[in-house]
């Protein structure tokens, strides 16, 4: 089945080559980081996590969102998503792989990372995150492989795969819940210590992930013969709309609780994000951009006319994805450290090597998803012929 990824037209190979270049640049930067240490990044003793961990957090959501196509299809027999499930599962595989890479590049002693398995520590959430992420990866690899192989051979998938697929649904919820618990259980970080963090993570995941899937479907329709169909995309758009509404609602609840209670250590993090604190305004333009993008996205999504038009829908999906990327992939992690528990605001700006490593991992994820989609669509082409 893998050989399908080795046959392709000119455009295909150009795209692969371009990704390869970005990956190579990232790899070179990583080797520099490996030799020098994490001091090559913009991180500091007060802002100890940054771009890497934030991308990890964001991508866990993208990975978990596969459940939004798998659940309707398998639990509610929603046939329309039949063609999409494999795309969702492959998106999950590539997102989880990126998550693991982002964790890996954030380690000070990467060669010792298997100590997490050598000395299993159930009282650490990081241990459970490793368990749930690797389990989710295995589940999706097995499910997508078995169902695609069955499709290729024009036979129904084996019966044992059904319970595995059902298991993957709560498992998807678990990966993002456990990831939220990484943060929400820390008394030292009031910004994260909120019971709504896990539900908020899920809401943002279930809007950003399907939005990305819609964009992928639209791209695939242009560059390949695969057509997801108008109706499934519209159904996905409704999922994006509801999830985005819930996400914005949750964020407003966080704002109300912090601002109305007026407890300084709760307010300061939001001040840092939206106004700036002690003269540090690094994230202010980003956060307002995120707010504007979210509002624009909601207007385009809630309005049936703009939602039904695939061009404005695409714009809405881009706005959802970017808005949530800023909120989760920048704001959420960095603001947890600003101010520090001792009240210090330390400037954090990602450095060039840090950004290069981040882009390299994203390119790797895109490469993975390109190859996987290529395989899936080639198999489909085969069965159709």
């Amino acid at each position: 089945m893998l050989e399908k990824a080795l046959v392709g037209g000119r455009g295909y190979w150009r795209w692969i080559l371009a990704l390869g270049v970005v990956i190579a640049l990232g790899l070179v930067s990583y080797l520099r980081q490996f030799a020098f240490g994490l001091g090559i990044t913009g991180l500091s003793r007060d802002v100890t996590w940054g771009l890497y961990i934030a991308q990890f957090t964001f991508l866990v959501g993208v990975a978990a969102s596969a459940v939004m196509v798998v659940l309707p299809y398998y639990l509610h027999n929603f046939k329309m998503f039949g063609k999409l499930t494999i795309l969702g599962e492959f998106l999950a595989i590539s997102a989880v792989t990126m998550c693991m890479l982002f964790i890996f590049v954030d380690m000070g002693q990467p060669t010792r990372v298997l100590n997490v398995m050598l000395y299993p520590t159930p009282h650490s959430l990081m241990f459970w995150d490793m368990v749930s992420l690797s389990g989710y990866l295995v589940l999706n690899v097995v499910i997508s492989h078995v169902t695609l192989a069955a499709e290729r051979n024009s036979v129904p998938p084996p019966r044992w795969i059904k319970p595995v697929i059902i298991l993957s649904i709560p498992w998807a919820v678990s990966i993002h819940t456990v990831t939220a618990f990484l943060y929400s259980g820390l008394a030292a970080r009031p910004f994260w210590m909120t019971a709504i963090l896990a539900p908020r993570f899920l809401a943002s995941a279930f809007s950003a992930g399907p939005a990305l899937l819609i964009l992928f479907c639209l791209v695939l329709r242009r560059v390949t013969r695969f057509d997801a169909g108008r109706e499934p995309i519209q159904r996905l758009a409704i999922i994006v709309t509801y999830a985005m509404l819930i996400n914005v609602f949750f964020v407003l609840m966080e704002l109300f609780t912090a601002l109305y209670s007026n407890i300084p250590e709760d307010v300061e993090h939001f001040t840092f994000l939206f106004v700036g604190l002690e003269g540090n305004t690094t994230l202010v333009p980003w956060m307002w951009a995120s707010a504007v993008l979210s509002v624009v996205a909601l207007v385009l999504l809630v309005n049936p006319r703009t939602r039904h038009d695939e061009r404005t829908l695409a714009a809405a999906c881009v706005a959802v994805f970017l808005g949530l990327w800023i909120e989760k992939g920048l704001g959420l992690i960095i603001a947890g450290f600003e101010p520090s528990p001792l009240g210090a605001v330390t400037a954090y700006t990602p450095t060039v090597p840090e950004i290069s490593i981040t882009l390299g991992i994203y390119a790797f994820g895109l490469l993975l998803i390109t190859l996987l989609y290529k395989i899936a669509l080639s198999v489909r082409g085969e069965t159709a012929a």
Partner: protein
Amino acid sequence: MGQDRRGFLKLAGLAAVCATARESLTRLAGAAGTEPRPSAKAPKVRWAMVVDPRRCLEQQNCTACIDACDHAHNVPAFTNPRHEVKWIWKTRFDEAFPDQDSRYIDPALTSEAVLALCNHCDNPPCVRVCPTQATWKRDDGIVAMDWHRCIGCRYCMAACPYGSRSFNWEDPRPHIAHENPDFPTRTKGVVEKCTFCDERIDRGELPACVVACKEKALVFGDLNDPDSEVRRLLRTRFALRRRAGLGTQPEVFYLV
């Protein structure tokens, strides 16, 4: 033909996984075997420190305790404040005690005046979150570090409400002026902090900072011994603990 190749590749992959799995399982079993168990006859000691900021302030520019600690433990002196490594250091009153209103306090206290160090909490959040038990609470209450095991994930730094943990953002060796050959340095990519001088305590000595302080502003002792100096001080004087409301139970006390 294609089917055969697929089958072969699958089998080869599975074999590779099994081969490595066996090795890691043996290692796992071996590692579990060598894991030290707390000895049954552990002494019921609970080490703690009492800081007297007034005595400390009598020598405004004194850094004897800091220097002694830095030298004893090869603490690197990074000039870049973002990469600073701190075991015991002086800080502002409002940073040390953010939940105490310091508006009308003696101005002498609002400058860099309060000694801060790891609180060796009885309920340490750093220990709770560490995924490899590279930091853990010893039977005598010291929150210890195993620099051989730390993977540098910095979760403990996110969890510590006191900023007591530092990370080696780069190789610390070039930043140590005078190496003490009897104590290791650290390597890049691990977290470090004050260890209450566990290496000295195990030899029956007092922590280096306590010995170095001529003003006797630092008192070290056993909280479980009602006749100890720390208990006597805590009985007769009122003491603060940093951010006591978080429930971490710091075991470094500040006399008022």
